[in-house]
């Protein structure tokens, strides 16, 4: 038989029990249900309405800031997303080369006007047939002047 004091000492120190001691402990616990029934009969504490009301207020208070925070972070997130999207758009947008083929509408209009004037001038002076683009002749030192050329002068 296990000495009771030895078991008590082990229980108080929370050291592992042998199989026999564990069995004895189970038996003692099973036989001490009367004490458990005393504890069971100890009443619960019914909360007051004030307590419940205060709890509701605290719950609402904890809920409300969370929603505000979520909304604020949502706005910040949306703003950031828009900013990032705009940055990506401008960074990836093809930049027209300066003096390249793309021209502003004002330039295009000026080019068309100049071409029209040149065409009218060509038709009125008889230079060119009006359908061919007017091209300046390159005159260099090796050019051989013909009689026609000289006659034109």
């Amino acid at each position, binding site marked *: 038989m296990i000495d009771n004091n030895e078991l008590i000492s082990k229980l108080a120190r929370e050291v592992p029990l042998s199989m026999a001691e564990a069995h004895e402990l189970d038996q003692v616990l099973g036989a*001490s249900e009367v*004490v*458990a029934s*005393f*504890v069971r009969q*100890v009443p*619960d504490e*019914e*909360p007051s309405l004030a307590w*419940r009301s205060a709890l509701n207020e605290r719950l609402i208070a904890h809920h409300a800031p969370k929603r505000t925070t979520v909304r604020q972070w949502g706005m910040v997130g949306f703003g950031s997303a828009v900013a990032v999207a705009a940055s990506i758009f401008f960074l990836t947008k093809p930049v027209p080369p300066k003096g390249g083929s793309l021209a502003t509408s004002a330039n295009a209009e000026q080019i068309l006007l100049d071409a029209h004037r040149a065409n009218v001038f060509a038709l009125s002076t008889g230079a060119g047939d009006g359908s061919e683009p007017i091209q300046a002749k390159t005159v260099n030192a090796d050019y051989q002047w013909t009689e026609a050329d000289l006659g034109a002068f």
Partner: protein
Amino acid sequence: MSVIFGVARLTNRERLDASAELALVEQCRRKNFEAFGKIIDAYQARVIGFVRRMVATSEEAEDIAQEVFIRAYQGMDRFDGRSSLRTWLFRIAYNLCVDNARKRQRAVPEASFDESEGSLEMPDHRWDPEAQVLDAELRTVVEEAIGTMSEKLRTVLLLHDKEEMGYDELAGILDVPVGTVKSRLFLARSHVQKAVEVYRS
């Protein structure tokens, strides 16, 4: 904001069955206040009763009990359903009580166990559990005995004998082996038994 928690009240200590509990938890995750009100209704008296016996004053107990439900509401998404809602709530309550004791460094006057008194012998079987009804005086004796035992023993006694939790459940909450739970329960019951014997003698 006209939100009212606990419109549909449950009677005190009315147990929620597992499926009803899970349904309520699911509604709470969708921030259904009324569902959480039902959970409060079902557990508030027991949680307050437990916390009240774990801390020094009623004010502390009420504050901590409120904190239990606030944390539960906030952490409902983390409740995985592996344990019951009751176990989860009492785990929160227990942890808050331990934190509170640490903060206040409240030294619980642990009742020394006098081995020579022999009060750890087998209980007197002439005590018929069914016939033992606590009168007001005996209730006070039991309450005082619970109040003067160490926090470790008190926790096990209240959660096992009052809240009817199993050894495994308790071992999970306290993070100790089952054998330790049994040891503490035995010592706690012996302490109460000794107090009752003194009263009766």
